[in-house]
């Protein structure tokens, strides 16, 4: 199982500057994403999940700045390169965006241009990355729409986003992202803005297509319930730092970091039957932020890391 990572983020740092000064948003974060697996990045809002995703797509723009680190991408087993070393504005970057790495976003209601047809927008992705005729692109776009569960695709191609419901729009966004068969699909809270029932449909659609296209998924969410459903591996983020990484089993069953333990304790479904009426715990009930602030990540096994002082790690797990 210990195959090579398809994406390897090493000591990535990002900061945003404003009149108030420089605001470091990512501090030396490192983790690996394994080929064909789903890595969930979980953390409360503002912890730097989207910034991590955008840095991978080289979408960070002024006033944001990537100040260090590398993001090594290995599209095939033999080849690999550092995404952060690609020249700004080079063909390689445009090749990557939407071609080898695609992304879907949180807000399906606003993620599509209101003044262009669905067909136009899905076909655009094909025409940018593949050398095909317009008729061929139309065909492929139609097929992709059908695959994401849109009926009467040919007629739907000529419609505008406002004629689609939120769930339908998210399906279109997924079709748009997967139509070029990317090697990595980044999902930035793709279901947060949707109804619970639609949410479940979209999750299983992503899962199904992931296997069909054999792609690797970076799944960003703040919802541990969703993590349990979709993820193989988990990265826990807090305030621009990674606190813990590991397989979904390791992180959810035997969390090492007090913050992760706090997150789990704060999950509504976790409350013991007897405690139902008790107030839900918040993370801060369990986790005192200052206690372990800025501890460096320690590798304690195959893709398992935790940001704790050595003596706080159970002795049998110490490296």
């Amino acid at each position, binding site marked *: 199982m210990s195959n090579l990572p398809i994406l390897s983020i090493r000591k990535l740092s990002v900061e945003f500057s404003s009149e108030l000064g420089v605001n470091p948003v990512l501090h030396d974060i490192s983790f690996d994403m394994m080929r064909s697996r789903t890595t969930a990045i979980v953390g409360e809002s503002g912890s730097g999940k989207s910034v991590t995703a955008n840095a991978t*797509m080289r*979408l960070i723009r002024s006033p944001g700045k990537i100040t260090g680190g590398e993001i090594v991408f290995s599209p095939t087993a033999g080849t690999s390169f550092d995404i952060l070393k690609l020249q700004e*504005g080079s063909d390689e970057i*445009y*090749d*990557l*965006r*939407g*071609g080898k790495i*695609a*992304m879907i*976003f949180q*807000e399906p209601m*606003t*993620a*599509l*241009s*209101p*003044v*262009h047809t669905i067909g136009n927008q899905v076909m*655009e*992705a094909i025409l*940018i*990355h593949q050398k095909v005729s317009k008729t061929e692109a139309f065909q492929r776009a139609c097929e992709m729409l059908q695959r994401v569960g849109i009926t009467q695709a040919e007629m739907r191609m000529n419609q*505008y986003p*406002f*004629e689609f419901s939120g769930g339908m729009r998210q399906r279109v*966004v997924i079709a*748009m992202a997967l139509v070029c068969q990317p090697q990595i699909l980044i999902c930035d809270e793709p279901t947060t803005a949707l109804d619970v029932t639609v949410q479940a449909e979209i999750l299983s659609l992503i899962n199904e297509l992931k296997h069909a296209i054999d792609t690797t998924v970076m799944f960003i969410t703040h919802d541990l319930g969703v993590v349990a459903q979709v993820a193989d591996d988990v990265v826990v983020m807090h305030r621009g730092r990674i606190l813990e990484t590991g397989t979904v089993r390791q992180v959810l069953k035997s969390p090492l970091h007090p913050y992760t333990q706090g997150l789990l304790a704060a999950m509504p479904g976790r409350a013991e039957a007897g405690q139902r009426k008790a107030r839900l715990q918040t993370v801060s009930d369990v986790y005192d932020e200052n206690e372990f602030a800025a501890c460096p990540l320690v590798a304690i096994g195959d893709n398992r890391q935790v940001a704790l002082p050595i003596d706080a790690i159970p002795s049998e797990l110490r490296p």
Partner: protein
Amino acid sequence: MANYIIRRLLTMIPTLLVISLVVFILIQLPPGDIITSTLESMRQQGMEASDEQIEALKAQYNLDKSMPMQYLHWLFNFVQGDMGYSIKYQQPVNTLIWERMGYTVIIAIASLLFTWALSIPIGIYSAVRQYGWGDYFFTIVGLLGLATPNFLLALVLMYFGYTWFGVSVGGLFSPELAEAPWSWEKFVDLLAHLWIPMIVIGTAGTASIIRILRANLLDELSKPYVTTARAKGVRPIKLVFKYPVRVAISPFISTIGWLLPSLISADAIVSIVLNLPTTGPLMLQALLSQDMYLAGSFLMLLSILTVVGMLLSDILLAIVDPRIRYE
């Protein structure tokens, strides 16, 4: 779409009727009427009008009838294309207005094209290079332009036009060609004179359009659908032009509607300074001298053009933005 247009056309009728009533009352509001001003000017020339003459005058202008009848008369004639008779100019209003309308349209369209050709590229540039030195430069120049009174710019340009190019000052034609029939020579002469009013009137709107376009575009550029497009691999130039510009430009499509009435009224001061044969100064005169039929016709034309212009804008907007079309 056709339904929408028909509905809009039908609602225009009551709107215009109400406006016509307001216009008619407005014209009647100031003390004195055509008769008093005619008698006044006769008296100044040392003549006294007899009672019969006064009655005849009143009958000629329908002033012996009741107010509602006067209104209906005026409205009915207007609808038939007879806008009445100007006391001051002693000519039918029709000949007075249409003669100048042609030149007004030429100047207005030229200056609008000038404004857009200048402000749209600059607005897009300023948004894409926000806080770059070019953005600051255009902001300063634009604010200077906004703060410069039009007539001042007109005077300066007239001075340079005369000293550098030897263009005769003011008007749309050289004096020797003004009354001549149309010819190639006259057309070239028109172009040689047109640039001054084009720049003067055109720069007036430039600064504000740049600011509005820049703000709209910045707003659009930060929307999620632009990020989606970037994440798809769309390149920057196409990204700006295919998506946000189209949305950011729609406020200017609505100004096409306001343009129609401004054909008549706007820039009266510039036209006076530049001695242009347009409708602006004529309308100002008509209002000042209470030339009832002339003033009323102008106000009515303005209203009609406003209403029609708004309809035009809405139709154009619906073409650019599908969301409006389907409502």
